[in-house]
């Protein structure tokens, strides 16, 4: 119940009824919490930061697969300028779904994106 409720809350009123019965959707969570800093473009602070180390794939949308455990640690502990996210924002189960999404390849992410469109 914990995850179902918190996911519904996290996604806002408009999606409440449709998400109550759904499993956490990693891509939706990424869009809700991560794209504001990690979308494509140097106006996004996370992307601008990562451009130093990953100039060819600074946006997490284009990044090579990330280890799920690495994602969990960064989300809960932050990394340099990135502050951590609290369990009231992203629950443990949502974090698992988010980590799974970020562990897919850029091609797979784009495939999911196209399918959604």
């Amino acid at each position, binding site marked *: 119940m*914990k995850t179902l409720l918190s996911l519904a809350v996290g996604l806002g009123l408009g999606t409440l009824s449709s998400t109550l019965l759904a499993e956490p959707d990693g891509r939706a969570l990424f869009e809700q919490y991560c794209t504001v*800093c990690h979308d494509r473009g140097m*106006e996004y602070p996370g992307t*601008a930061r990562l451009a130093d180390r990953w100039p060819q794939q600074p946006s997490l949308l284009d990044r090579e697969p990330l280890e799920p455990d690495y994602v969990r640690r960064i989300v809960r502990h932050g990394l340099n300028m990135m*502050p*951590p996210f609290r369990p009231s924002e992203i629950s443990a189960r949502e974090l698992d779904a988010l980590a799974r999404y970020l562990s897919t390849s850029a091609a797979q992410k784009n495939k999911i994106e196209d399918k959604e469109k």
Partner: protein
Amino acid sequence: MERILPPQVNGEAFRGFVAEAQKAVGRDYVYLDLEWELPAYNDEYATLPKALHQPSAAVAPANVAQVQAVVRAAGRYGIPLWPISTGKNFAYGGPAPRLAGAVVLDLKRMNRILEVNEKHAYAVVEPGVSYMDMYRHLQSIGSKLWIDPAAPGWGGMLGNLVDHGAGYTPYGDHLLMQCGMEVVLADGTIAHTAMGALPGSRTTHLYKYGLGPWADGLFTQSNFGVVTRIGIWLMPEPPGYTPFMITYEREEDLYEVTERVRPLKLNNIIPNAATTVEMLWEAAVQKQRRHYHTGKGPLPESARKKLRADLQIGVWNFYGAVYGPAPIMENNLEIIRDSLTSIPGAKIYFDDDRKGDIGWEYRRQLMRGIPNMTEYNQMNWIPNGGHMDFSPISPVTGEDAMRQYSLIRDRVNRAGFDYIGEMLVGWRDMHHIFALVYDLQDEAEKRRANQLFGELIDAAAAEGYGEYRTHLDFMDKIAGTYNWNDAAQQRQRERLKDALDPSGILGPGKMGIWPQRLRKEGV
């Protein structure tokens, strides 16, 4: 990381509270894990050891009844609570409590948008609603209402407002646009303020003051109650919007710009919270310092000159906007142009002139009520950047603007930091925001930043300037500068605190207000 219990609380009392809190909100929403849950409640950009503001636990209720239950349990066990909404106020301490060992009352899960009223142009929200959430919601329902987002836009609408935050549209003075409030008091009572105190009131969110003393302000920047719901007036979408930017070449132009902006603001020719931005603020949101200078200390003039050329910016950069039907915008723009561009070297830019410019684009969005995170790029100015904001209020005069600018710049540069600042012009004041950016991996630099901040407070107070908001570390010190007539205001607040919260459980130390039993904790 080891657990820190609140002062005057033993393990038995803490466990008793935790058990009651778990019963109230569910075990899943009482966070105790020191490895995976509580680190996110620390002050991520702390310049002093994080343990100084480390909570013992966090509790996340989902509704007001659960807030009441948690507050009552805290009262029974003497547990200090630190309420937060979205917890994104990182320049001032983020979600961390002032008092080590306090339990964070995390209201993020209370994120319902309770009402959007198109006819009367307002919304009613719970604490967990961010600017991003509200913007997305308004878009999804096809609303013709604008929000006034703070920068960056992941902040909470309620939390920012009760912390006296500001934005960049004509609704930039957030507290001014507040109307109606629900508060849980320290004994668990729910109170509705002003018109909302009338059962069945039809004007709760239309008239701010009700009858008798207006109490809403007492629950802002305070620890007298937990605000669980708020009415916020929203701006109807105007028929037109024209943002502009004017660049100025010389440091001393700040004097004349400020003198000329004052009448334009007083007469509402420029209706929005217009902003005079120093060049390094512009640079920091889109460039990295090391690409212009790799040495320590303030950026040399040669590097500053190259930045100005590369970014097509001035030493000062004024951002404003006009709104309304085309004839009104054209008329006001003519007055603005006559006044602000007749300063030698001034250049005016509009949207078509600055396509693809990151600094322009995020300002254009903010003045139009579109939240974004671009300003967070300031932390990219240096590797591993963190920041605290020093925020004195200034009169809108050239003399005061120059005095405050010099006061801060000189001390900041002497301490080896860059001056990254802006002056946001409100109705009759300027919020002077200096973003003190430091390297989170450099302990010596962090200590220096903390010391500098304290020096700035003293120097500003000596010149008659006070800050409007501050980081956890400096709440006591700044509260101490508001000490006229033997600190009569502070003593009044303490009397209110003792009357409204005799157990002293709500937000101990918030803005220098301590409950009687912990008053010695303050400075």
